[in-house]
């Protein structure tokens, strides 16, 4: 089993540290979700993991070999970044066809047929200039590159931004199909958390340049509960437990409780206990300003 390991990754941009000593271990054969607020450092992290941007400190290794500027390790990786061609930027001059040709050159396992099939399925015209594409089409191109790269570790930065709901569902379908067929690892960052939650085996939460949590999605959701009721009852029931995101209205109180292994919420209090969606868990953890 292959592993992509990042150790003590730090990154400084213009005097400001945007990633603080991140340790991350990614295994083959899993779909990871990467969630975090805008500016948390998701794109920077993805970029660094794939040698597209250098670290200020720390190392990234694939099966023990450093990834930086190493074609041997890069052959197993793919980072399909968001394409947003501001007028005059590098990518706007190219046609989709050329962009894919370059991709085919540097991804050793490039599957030409898959790229063609997906282009057809997405109704993309390869002769179109990237600068002329709509938001949705731009997302589709990044998805084509990511999928056809057939890379063992494929990273996608907000692949569904710009896609309408029908296309988004198509994407999740495509993702699961490709995963079940090849067992490739996918690391996908997204803001549309609830839709993708079911697909992520593990979820990685990035908050202010640090990894807040990396856990099996189901396990995480099974230990997060929303407790509500009279504030006295809630406080008593949640005593000694990890709490987040308290909300008040008059005498009523609601709070998210996170259980450690072995802990339980006592049953004899007059409280309502509800399950939380991944989105709500995320908001409770990362919603408050520091």
């Amino acid at each position, binding site marked *: 089993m292959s592993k992509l390991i990042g150790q003590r990754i730090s990154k400084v941009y213009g005097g400001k540290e945007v990633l603080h000593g991140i340790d991350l271990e990614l295994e083959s054969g899993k779909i990871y979700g990467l969630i975090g607020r805008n500016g948390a450092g998701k794109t920077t992290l993805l970029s660094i993991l794939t040698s597209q*941007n250098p670290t200020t400190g720390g190392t990234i290794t694939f099966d023990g070999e450093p990834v930086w500027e*190493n074609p041997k390790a890069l052959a197993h990786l793919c980072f399909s970044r968001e394409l947003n061609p501001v007028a005059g930027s590098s990518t706007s001059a*190219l046609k989709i066809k050329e962009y894919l040709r370059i991709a085919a050159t540097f991804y050793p396992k490039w599957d030409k047929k898959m790229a063609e099939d997906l282009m057809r399925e997405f109704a993309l015209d390869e002769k179109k200039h990237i600068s002329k594409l709509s938001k949705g089409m731009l997302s589709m191109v990044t998805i084509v590159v990511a999928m056809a790269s057939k890379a063992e570790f494929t990273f996608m930065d907000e692949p569904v931004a710009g896609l309408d709901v029908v296309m988004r569902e198509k994407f999740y379908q495509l993702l699961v199909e490709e995963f079940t067929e090849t067992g490739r690892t996918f690391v996908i960052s997204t803001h549309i958390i609830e839709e993708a939650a079911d697909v992520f085996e593990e979820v990685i939460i990035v908050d202010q340049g640090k990894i807040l949590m990396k856990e099996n999605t189901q396990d995480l959701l099974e230990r997060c509960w929303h407790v509500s009721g009279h504030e006295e009852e809630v406080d008593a029931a949640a005593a000694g437990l990890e709490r987040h995101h308290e909300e008040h209205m008059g005498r009523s109180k609601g709070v998210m409780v996170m259980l450690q292994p072995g802990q339980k919420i006592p049953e004899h209090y007059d409280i309502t206990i509800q399950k939380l969606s991944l989105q709500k868990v995320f908001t409770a953890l990362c919603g408050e300003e520091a």
Partner: protein
Amino acid sequence: MDLVKRNLRYWSRTTLYNLMQTVLVSLVLVFFFVTGKSDFSGTEGILETSAALYPYYLILTGALVIMSVTTAFFQTYFFIFISLNSSRRGAVLGVMASTGGVILVIVTIGWVLWNLVPGEISESGRTLLPLITGALLAVGAAAISMGAVNARWGKKGVIVTVLLSMVLGGTLGLTIAMGADGIGGLLRKMMLSFAGIERYIVLLAGAVLYIAAGIFAMTITRKLEVRR
């Protein structure tokens, strides 16, 4: 290695395309200038003169093509290559190989033509070949160095490029005004005046500069960031 093969496949296509441009444009230029000539020194006819002067036009066009293509590469393609999984080193090596390929073909065409076409122009051409190769390599070295500077430091690099283009453009305009056998003829006259210098030293210097430029480019782009 598989990656080398794939790189070659991509770059050979681009190189061929650039070469075609160079060859065709030079063809147009040589006929444009030669047919405009009113006198023909010696017993050489139009066809022979054109063929003999053609390599000089190739050199000029080639130099311009090398400059513009390399600039475009470092401004645009370099970042795309990196974002699509290439290493920075690999990208620089690729552009070096492609430029080297163009230079090789130009020199080869010159060598072939100057061995086939009889006459004084060809004879002096053959002698000058090492010098020409060295000069082209130097041009390539300049293009790659400037391109890398542009990629790393952006605007400042652009200013240098613009200044240099102005100088080149000015020289070109001047030579057109001066007539002679067109620009090609003037270049030939210029190079002949250098024939005294050991031609092989120029060749060596050119090669050294080319490799140095490559190393320079790789060094300054070592930690290049892909901009959003």
